[in-house]
């Protein structure tokens, strides 16, 4: 008997397509990717509660769409793409709902960061997160995936649908801005 965590994505997808194993396979997929998906969303929306909702929505959409997943991309980049869309849509809805300009939503997220019981970073971490919140959406996304998650540009490209060259430029601009911000004060 193969151990649960040794199934490849391909095996998990095949199991998922078998009605008798569907729930079990999906449970394994959730266990395998839940942390990566969670941290990816958490860095975008900051609040734990919002992240919790969005993670569940992400896996729910995966559950609904996995049957027709064509395996042209890796399972985790596909999940990341759903998670990214969920998180960005959530932030856009928040802006629309409260008629807030971009900077005010980021200020709100910055305040959330300071009052969040589940933020364990020190002063420097707080400053880095605040600097990230000042970045344009795409630069922040690219920086998170490259710097924290150490993803390859090719993988990030599969998630956000931007060329590797453009991603390198985005990351470079993001680093410059953050370094400048960290050197202030």
């Amino acid at each position, binding site marked *: 008997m193969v151990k649960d965590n040794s199934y490849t994505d391909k095996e998990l997808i095949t199991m998922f397509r078998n009605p008798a194993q569907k729930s079990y396979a999906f449970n394994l997929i959730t266990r395998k990717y839940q942390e990566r998906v969670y941290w990816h969303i958490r860095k975008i929306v900051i609040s734990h509660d919002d992240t919790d909702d969005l993670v*569940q929505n992400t896996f729910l959409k995966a559950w609904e769409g996995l049957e027709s997943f064509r395996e042209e991309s890796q399972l985790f980049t596909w999940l990341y793409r759903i998670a990214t869309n969920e998180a960005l849509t959530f932030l856009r809805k928040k802006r629309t709902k409260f008629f807030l300009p971009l900077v005010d939503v980021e200020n709100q997220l910055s305040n959330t960061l300071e009052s969040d019981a589940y933020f364990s970073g020190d002063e*420097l971490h707080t400053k880095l997160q605040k600097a990230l919140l000042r970045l344009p959406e795409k630069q922040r996304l690219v920086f998170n995936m490259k710097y924290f998650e150490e993803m390859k540009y090719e993988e990030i490209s599969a998630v956000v649908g931007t060329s590797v060259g453009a991603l390198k430029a985005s990351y470079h601009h993001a680093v410059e801005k953050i370094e400048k911000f*960290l050197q202030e004060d």
Partner: protein
Amino acid sequence: MLNNELLNNELRKNPFAVPDKYFDNLPSRVQDKCIMSKKSPVFAFGLLPKLAWSGGIIVLALALFLSYFNFNNTSIGKQNPETLMVDADSGEISPKNVDVRKSSLKSYRNDVKVEYLAVRNVNLNDYLASRY
């Protein structure tokens, strides 16, 4: 690429945390949500609004049809031999004109026309024989 030493080393650590055993429970909560979405009828969330719209449109169409019918078919009030008699006596219709093809009589039902002929003592068979 990263010139700032601080950015290179210290800050890669994840500063966020989660409640205790959060990741132990998440798969079962996700599973529950998936099962709920399977059980919760598409009917209730997907089809019902469409049905409500269709129902509304059908009711509206019916109401429009009935009001149109009432408006145009003033014959509803006319659908009795007495009214037909009045029309006939006023010269609008004569027994010889009792023909469904005559536009002035189209609004009367055939049974009313037959009753009218009977009141006028016109034999229907004779009448029809004279006409055709």
